[in-house]
């Protein structure tokens, strides 16, 4: 993956976009508008996943996500581990939510305007003081 210091946007605009979207079967946007960079994903234990004909055929990337999420991971961490753009990772994550194999936990302060909770700010402050 290129670092942002390697070149500026004008050069990047012509980068081929084909490969990542092959993984998603050509889909370029997630149908889920509710996944953010820091939505935390965790894998549902296999035994708790309902088996059914509706289950999607998994790509290797789907399996990698499930393995990663044995420990809860944010969407940004999953995208980084897969070396895929965030929007592509979100499509794959959405598939696994739809199939009941991943749970999502939304961030504490997901949308602008709601404001962080005082208890959370205190917890962050106390945690930082211990660093």
């Amino acid at each position, binding site marked *: *993956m*290129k*670092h*942002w*210091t390697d070149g*500026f*946007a004008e050069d*990047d*605009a012509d*980068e081929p*976009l084909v490969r990542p979207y092959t993984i998603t079967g050509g889909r370029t946007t997630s149908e889920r508008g*509710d996944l*953010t*960079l*820091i*939505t*935390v*994903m*965790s894998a*549902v234990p296999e035994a708790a996943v309902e088996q059914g004909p509706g289950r999607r055929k998994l790509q290797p990337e789907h399996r990698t996500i499930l393995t990663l999420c044995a420990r*809860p991971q*944010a969407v*940004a*961490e999953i*995208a*980084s581990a897969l070396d895929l*753009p*965030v*929007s592509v990772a979100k499509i794959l994550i959405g598939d696994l*939510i739809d199939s009941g194999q991943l*749970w*999502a*936990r*939304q*961030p*504490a*302060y*997901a*949308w*602008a305007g709601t*404001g*962080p909770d*005082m208890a*959370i*700010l*205190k*917890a*962050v*402050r*106390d*945690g*930082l*003081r211990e*660093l």
Partner: protein
Amino acid sequence: MGYVNSDQEDDAPLAVKILIAGGFGVGKTTMVGAVSEVAPLRTEEYLTHASVGVDDLEDLSGKSTTTVALDFGRISIGSGLVLYLFGTPGQERFWFMWNDLVNGALGAVVVVDTRRLEVSFASIDFFEGRGIPFVVGVNCFHGVRDRTPEEIRAALDLDPQVPLLLFDARERRQGRDVLLALIDQLMAARPHSTPHPVP
């Protein structure tokens, strides 16, 4: 969210984020790396933006795609909370449109380098314009403190209530102190917070 299961929810930490902004080469990734519990991770995103000045009627979408990359780190706060630090990409005109990056941030640290204050102007303007709380961290990694905080504040045209700290982005504790200044600012700004005696 309908798909959140309450049993499972207890296992996953609650996430919050702070943006580490500022211009090219001011030490954002250095700061993220110094305070993060893991080496900075890198991720990228495709951003679609309306082309500026396009008058070609055949270009019906009027859009083009740009790739931006950022480095981020994490700090676990106990077992139930994780603070993510996102160093913003260098190309400001693009990340400013990356709503998922900006939305929901507790606030931001704008890192400035006294030798090139101007590269961080756009970040300050952005957070002021969006009403996102921020503090300014003056990175003195080169050991030169050739300007006083007052001079830097004047040069940046900072509002008096915006905290400004001198720090070394390579030093974990100093980076931590900049983050704490932001949290203190957020707590002080809470409209319904009850006053408490200063210890």
